[in-house]
């Protein structure tokens, strides 16, 4: 069933004139790069047999009854068994890091797990997939979370969404109510900011603290929630839980879920078999003009040249990495050919600077300084030495990954467009 199910295209998109109000214009007027990927689906192409998005229709969640017809009830598995099933299907964290999910689950064996947290906050600007999954196949995501909670003995599930997804705040509680689950499932709304979706920020916020990244390297914990003992939590991305739900049914994840935008006629979320190429991915939305730059992995990702080699690259983590890109959360942005790459970089760097939580000095002072330098007119004052000097002072100097990831992204952009200028 695996291959045939995945051998399908599910594409969703919106017309440029449908772009939401918060769409940001970068560079030349009329060329829009979504300020934030829309998670709604006014339109979609859906071939029969899509995997994660099976049964989805634009703007309407798959109901509990339909979900049961499609997939049946979530299987009950012991944790050891679930770890094996998840490992067998090669599920990795789909929020960006790509950490093997079976190892994450295995690390919690024997611990008291207080919460299973579905991270649907999707702080990455260019990504819309988690919103699409939660809005269209909520029960698949919830199946994964409930299966994990049962296996780990966790007493509750929390689904974290961002405040700019009011539609999910309405539809998810209805989906939860329809399930009548023994494990309580709570829908929690957090701020809509870049770092609010970072794992430790979500945990901090749910435990009553600010939605800001917490200490790096500490095992995920909700301090003080369950008495004096520190309990641990399982936090994973919404797509990861959907894939766990499939893995628990011994169904592989041979599909890729990607957000495509930029020089794309219909930006949106696309599900394609892993055997497809980046050219096939963008063809679903329709490439506009002749872009020369592809941003892989969103604003925290890597810039690569859009050429024949890139076009023939497969849509897997390994293939994109071999190209010099980064899969991240599966967000791909083709820079419009009439938009200066330098202007685009300036806009994105400013957004990364604005995305700092403002906790760590080198990040909140360094990233705006970096954006200032890049915003200077190209040719006039953009000083690569000064830019490099600032980047060195930001890289690795914060408690979350934001400063390092931002610097790595800007550096990859400079490596690419610097050579072109």
């Amino acid at each position, binding site marked *: 069933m695996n291959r045939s199910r995945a051998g399908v295209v599910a594409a969703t998109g919106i017309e440029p004139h449908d772009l939401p109000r918060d769409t940001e214009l970068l560079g030349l007027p009329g060329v829009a790069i979504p300020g934030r990927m829309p998670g709604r689906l006014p339109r979609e192409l859906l071939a029969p047999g899509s995997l994660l998005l099976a049964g989805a229709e634009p703007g309407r969640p798959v109901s509990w009854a339909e979900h049961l017809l499609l997939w049946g009830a979530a299987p009950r598995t012991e944790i050891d068994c679930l770890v094996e099933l998840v490992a067998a299907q090669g599920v990795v964290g789909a929020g960006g890091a790509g950490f093997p999910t079976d190892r994450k689950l295995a690390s919690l064996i024997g611990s008291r797990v207080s919460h299973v947290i579905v991270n649907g906050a999707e702080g990455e600007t260019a990504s819309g997939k988690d919103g699409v999954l939660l809005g269209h196949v909520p029960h698949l995501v919830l199946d994964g979370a409930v299966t994990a909670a049962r296996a780990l003995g966790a007493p509750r599930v929390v689904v974290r969404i961002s405040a700019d997804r009011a539609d999910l705040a309405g539809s998810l509680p209805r989906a939860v109510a329809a399930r009548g689950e023994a494990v309580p499932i709570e829908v929690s709304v957090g701020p809509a900011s870049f770092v609010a979706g970072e794992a430790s920020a979500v945990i901090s916020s749910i435990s009553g603290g600010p939605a800001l990244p917490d*200490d790096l390297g500490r095992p995920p914990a909700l301090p003080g929630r369950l008495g004096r003992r520190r309990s641990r939590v399982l936090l994973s991305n919404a797509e990861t839980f959907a894939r766990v739900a499939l893995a628990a049914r011994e169904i592989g994840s041979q599909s890729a879920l990607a957000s495509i935008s930029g020089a794309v006629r219909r930006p949106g979320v696309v599900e394609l078999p892993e055997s497809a190429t980046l050219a096939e991915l963008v063809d679903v939305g329709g490439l506009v003009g002749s872009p020369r730059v592809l941003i892989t992995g969103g604003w925290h990702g890597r810039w690569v040249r859009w050429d024949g080699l890139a076009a023939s690259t497969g849509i897997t983590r390994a293939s994109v990495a071999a190209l010099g890109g980064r899969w991240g959360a599966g967000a791909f942005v083709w820079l419009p050919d009439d938009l200066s790459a330098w202007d685009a970089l300036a806009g994105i760097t400013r957004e990364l600077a604005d995305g700092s939580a403002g906790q760590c000095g080198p990040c909140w002072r360094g990233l705006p300084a970096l954006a200032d330098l890049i915003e200077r007119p190209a040719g006039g004052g953009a000083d690569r030495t000064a830019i490099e*000097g600032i980047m060195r*002072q930001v890289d690795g100097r914060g408690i979350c990954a934001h400063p390092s990831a931002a610097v790595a992204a800007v550096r990859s952009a400079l490596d690419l467009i610097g050579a072109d200028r």
Partner: protein
Amino acid sequence: MTAMMPTRRETAEPAGHVLSVDWTRCVGHGVCAAAIGERIDLDTWGYPIGVTTRGEGIPDSLVRAAKLAVSTCPAAALRLARADRA
């Protein structure tokens, strides 16, 4: 502008301790650079270069200076731990 990242001073001495910084506390007073100038420089904004979140090894000969840096930091942003407990 002191845009230089630290040049790790290679030493044969084993690092028995680890000095780390909590970036959310540090506001760039710069006192640490005076206390343990052998290890800490200040960046463009006055934040310490030479300490990290995960911690940098401190040999026994610098433990006194590191303790001074920890105790005099006005923001209580530095932490010194035994390497085997870090």
